[in-house]
């Protein structure tokens, strides 16, 4: 399954960089590559959940997502790329049918 219509095949190659020891860190605080290796989803406190029973495929959430971390699946429903969704909740706020709910994420 293609995860993201924007990143496409690139997204499939994306791998999160995890630095386990201080020696693995660069000497200065530089960016280590693009967002293909810096997953911003870890910033999230609340996680959006899509209820397809209520979704009317209007794509308002897709238009409003500032990341953008919402993509349209082949079946026409929307889904969220949790690697990049920061949990801002704009999608849930904008959804006219309340198909997206924000839930406390346990990590």
């Amino acid at each position, binding site marked *: 399954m293609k995860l993201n219509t924007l990143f496409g095949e690139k997204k499939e190659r994306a791998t999160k960089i995890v630095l386990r020891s201080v020696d693995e860190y660069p000497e200065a605080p530089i*960016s280590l590559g693009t967002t293909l290796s810096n997953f911003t989803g870890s910033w999230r406190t609340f996680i959006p959940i899509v209820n397809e029973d209520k979704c009317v495929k209007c794509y308002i959430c897709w238009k409003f997502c500032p990341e953008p971390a919402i993509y349209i699946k082949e079946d026409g429903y929307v889904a969220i790329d949790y690697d990049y969704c920061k949990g801002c909740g704009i999608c849930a706020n904008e959804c006219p049918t309340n198909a997206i709910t924000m839930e406390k994420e346990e990590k």
Partner: protein
Amino acid sequence: MAEYKPIRKVVSGNYAAAYAVKHARVQVVAAYPITPQTSIIEKIAEFIANGEADIQYVPVESEHSAMAATIGASATGARAFTATASQGLALMHEMLHWASGARLPIVMVEVNRALAPPWSVWDDQTDSLAQRDTGWMQFYAENNQEVYDGVLMAFKIAEQVNVPIMVIESAFILSHTYDVVEMIPQELVDEFLPPRKPLYTLTDFDNPKAIGALATPDDYYEFRYKLAKAHEEAKKIIKDVGKEFGERFGRDYSDMIEKYRTDDADFIFLGMGSLMGTVKEAVDRLRDEGYKVGAAKVRWFRPFPKEELYELAKKVDGIAVVDRNFSFGQEGILFTEAKGALYNTSARPLMKNYIVGLGGRDFTLNDVRKIAEDMKGLIERGELDEEVEWYHLKR
């Protein structure tokens, strides 16, 4: 290695700094004028106008912008310099953290000048010491020669540990007072100080990077540790570069604290900057009269040379800390640092803090003598009268 024949010039401390910037082949200078720093950047502008130096000069609208532009230049890999004093340094404060946090080896000459109000343009170390926790290294020059040597060494040290350095001189006492300075021929400076090899640059277009990027709580801590470790490692680099400078040019800077007649001293003076020249001269005279006294000049305040201080402190009965600065609500800043550095050691000399010379008040040979007499009496009695004395106060 070509034979070293120094070029002797009679220059002010500020001109000594400007010549060092030229000889270090600095590529970018961004600065804003402020008394008593202005003649540094005026002289650099003159070098550029005369075609004597190939430097990109960026006139900016404030010291905050001066440091911001210097950071930008350094991030491209250039050797970058600026200079300021007092209120200007205070305005730069935010950007000082950006320079050290991004690990950019900028060198800045800071002319110690009292902070207002009351308005003052004279010598006082509180301006630079108030920047203690910015992550910059700090070198205090005693005379114009040390301003020149300090700038050249600072680039070499900063570029090895990727930490910015302030080279600090006294308002007017050094900045505008002329003295003989031995300068080094350009080709020998070039041998000592090769072009900078940056860790990362913004102009590496094949490997694009953001410098000074965001770090979440998962990563920030490790970067702070790296900067702390760089300061520790700098102590060895300072020693190596100071020794190399001595071997090449005859003036050894391998000690972070210069020891003057301290070997058999009963007590010593501890201080920084130009006032230690006066103390050393007074020590000679006091020695002639039988006082067993020495002077310890803290060249590097950051990183703080606590190991060297311990070696000194364990051999003496007393330390008179002369601070041309003050931390309100506590005491002289060097005094706090020196006491703190010795706390977990076996060295327990009697230590007294003399607040001297604030706002350019003259600190004379006679003042050193009076402090020596006071210290001698305290050591004989074995107890302090008061921990901090406002020495010059009109009573």
